[in-house]
């Protein structure tokens, strides 16, 4: 895996180089963040010619290792102004790795208004003009059909939806999954960066590529991969629970714990939890049958299978990757009590290509600000569809939570660094609050998922309502996550490797066998620390200080029922998270 491809959209020239020495030992988030730090001017405008977008598979992508199919995408974020790494499932990462591509960089910006398709196969890279029928508001579901018909059913696709074409701050990058549905690098507006460079889509045709990446020590790799898969299958969360109920099982858990943000973050518990719970999602899919599937993997090699196909009343597919955070934002925070309404909204957000967390929290914020009627799923759906036009309302929602809060004159706007706070109230789940405040990404639960230890009792237990132990918990999880995000692994492996030491050791052994290395657990920790320090250095150079590592002030003085707790970390305590 040594091709380093640069596509310059200013000159429309392609350079296919050997991977530079300094990036040879990096992959995934470690590579995207180091590259952005090295080559992107921190004070540049994220939508201007000096920003660069980089795609990189992880250390283990393209191997037979379970869960190794995540693709990392990096750039300066137009939503937050910080460095950004957003990762996704789909088939892109495995194909890229098998084609021997270490990284793909899109840089520059054409002077004209035409959109292009970047097509990569084993012969090289070609820039085609984008078909007119997939531009100017064509939904992603249709665009994937058109591109698959043109370039072949089995190609990998990365796509900027209408929101990306319009360069909206919440635009995501959509990836075709193995069945032609959509997965997303959702957070931080990277679709707008792709759109700003006039790239509508990237096509990967791996015809003629080897079936696997080269493995330095195949026998050792196989043994480690087997031990790794065993840990995933053995752990009750990765082996059973996630495939049965999906991530939406968290609705009832957070509701019971009093940490389910409701009605625009004015409460931590709702009464209509069973309208939108994972148990109800499972029962509805099972009862409706048809194209519905209770569990589904988002990439080849996924054995956790947390995704699902949610069908309508007639059994016809509506959406997949129907995640807790989206269901929470629309169901609890925006009070939409009908799971079908939420499913159609999820599909519509995938179709226009926006982050379903930021836009869903924006809907709840718009309801609090009087722009939309509270709890009205039909009105919210009409508003989201307007993003494809885009009408002024469509642009406002596609602007994300921070913009909607400002336009509505609200102080109660749940963002950090202008990125929406997701589904765990930081007053009642304090560890994840520290992650929201301090991660270089803007509010992001996945950056250091303290919920696992605060609420789920995975990797030990730290009381979610107390401050004790939270700084170390958030710090250690952020370090571990930065490392896992560099492997190409799905973050959900953490549930198993936090509890089963053999699983963690097998992960390290797989990397060693793949590349003939002798890494230890300490090296993995060092990698995670180095990634975080690089990202934070970029942010500092872009103008961010410790004063930006704070939650919205209302969390400090509005108690969250039922526990009636407030956010009570001092600035000095928060700053300790990154003291390493």
């Amino acid at each position, binding site marked *: 895996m040594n091709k380093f491809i640069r596509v310059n959209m200013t000159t429309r020239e392609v350079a296919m180089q050997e991977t530079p020495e300094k990036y040879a030992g990096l992959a995934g988030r470690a590579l995207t963040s180091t590259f952005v730090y090295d080559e992107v001017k921190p004070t540049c405008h994220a939508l201007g010619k000096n920003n660069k977008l980089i795609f990189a598979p992880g250390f283990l992508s393209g191997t037979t290792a379970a869960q190794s199919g995540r693709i990392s995408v990096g750039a300066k974020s137009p939503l937050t102004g910080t460095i950004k790494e957003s990762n996704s499932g789909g088939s892109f990462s495995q194909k890229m790795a098998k084609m021997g591509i270490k990284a793909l960089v899109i840089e520059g910006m054409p002077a004209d208004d035409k959109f292009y398709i970047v097509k990569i196969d084993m012969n090289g890279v070609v820039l085609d003009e984008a078909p007119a029928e997939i531009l100017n508001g064509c939904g992603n579901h249709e665009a994937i059909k058109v591109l698959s018909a043109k370039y072949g059913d089995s190609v990998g696709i990365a796509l900027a939806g209408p929101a990306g074409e319009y360069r909206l701050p919440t635009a995501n990058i959509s990836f075709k999954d193995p069945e032609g549905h959509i997965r997303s690098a959702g957070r931080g507006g990277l679709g707008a960066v792709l759109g700003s460079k006039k790239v509508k889509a990237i096509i990967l045709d791996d015809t003629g590529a080897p079936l696997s990446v080269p493995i330095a020590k195949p026998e050792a790799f196989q043994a480690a991969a087997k031990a790794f898969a065993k840990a995933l299958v053995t752990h009750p969360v990765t082996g059973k*629970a996630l495939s049965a109920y999906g991530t939406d099982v968290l609705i009832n*858990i957070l509701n*019971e*714990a*009093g940490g389910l943000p409701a009605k625009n973050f004015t409460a931590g518990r709702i009464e209509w939890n069973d309208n939108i719970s994972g148990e109800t999602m499972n029962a509805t899919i099972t009862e409706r049958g048809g194209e519905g599937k209770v569990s589904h993997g988002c990439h080849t090699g996924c054995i956790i299978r947390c995704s699902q196909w949610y069908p309508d009343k007639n059994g016809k597919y509506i959406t997949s990757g129907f995640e807790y955070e989206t269901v929470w934002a629309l169901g609890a925070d925006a009070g939409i009590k009908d799971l079908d309404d939420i499913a159609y909204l999820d599909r519509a957000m995938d179709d226009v290509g926006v982050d379903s967390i930021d836009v869903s929290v924006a809907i709840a914020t718009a309801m609090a600000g009087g722009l939309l009627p509270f709890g009205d799923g039909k009105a919210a759906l009409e508003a989201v569809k307007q993003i494809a036009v885009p009408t002024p309302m469509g642009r406002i929602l596609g602007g994300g939570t921070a913009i909607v809060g400002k336009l509505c004159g609200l102080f109660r706007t749940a963002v950090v660094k202008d990125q929406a706070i997701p589904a765990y109230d930081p007053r009642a789940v304090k560890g994840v609050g520290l992650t929201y405040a301090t991660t270089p990404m803007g509010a992001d639960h996945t950056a250091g998922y303290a919920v696992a230890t605060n609420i789920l009792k995975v990797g030990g237990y730290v009381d979610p*309502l107390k401050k004790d132990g939270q700084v170390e918990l958030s710090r250690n999880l952020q370090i571990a996550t930065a490392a896992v995000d560099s492997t190409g692994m799905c973050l959900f492996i953490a549930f198993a490797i936090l509890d089963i030491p053999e699983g963690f050791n097998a992960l390290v052994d797989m990397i060693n066998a793949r590349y003939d290395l002798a890494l230890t657990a300490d090296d993995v920790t060092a990698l995670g620390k180095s990634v975080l320090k690089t990202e934070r250095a970029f942010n500092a150079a872009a103008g961010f200080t410790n004063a930006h590592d704070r939650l919205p002030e209302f969390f400090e003085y509005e108690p969250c029922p039922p526990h009636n707790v407030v956010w009570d970390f001092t600035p000095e305590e928060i700053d300790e998270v990154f003291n390493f």
Partner: protein
Amino acid sequence: MTVEVRLFATLRRHAPASPNGVMAVEMPAGSTVLELVRALNLDPKEVHLIMVNGTGCGFEQPISDGDRIGLFPPVGGG
């Protein structure tokens, strides 16, 4: 005393008659969560998360009249 028990995920199969796994259960005063779990014929090994009035705790936790008790098998998401 009467406590409100809420069963979630796979534990709901033990309460097929209760809508959404919610039921009122009579227990002797001074009971613990473990005694409640046994009274419900649940296998303690199946119960991974216990919340009494929204606060995580263990099997030894004493329960009181009117408590809201949530019981979960191992689950996760994110």
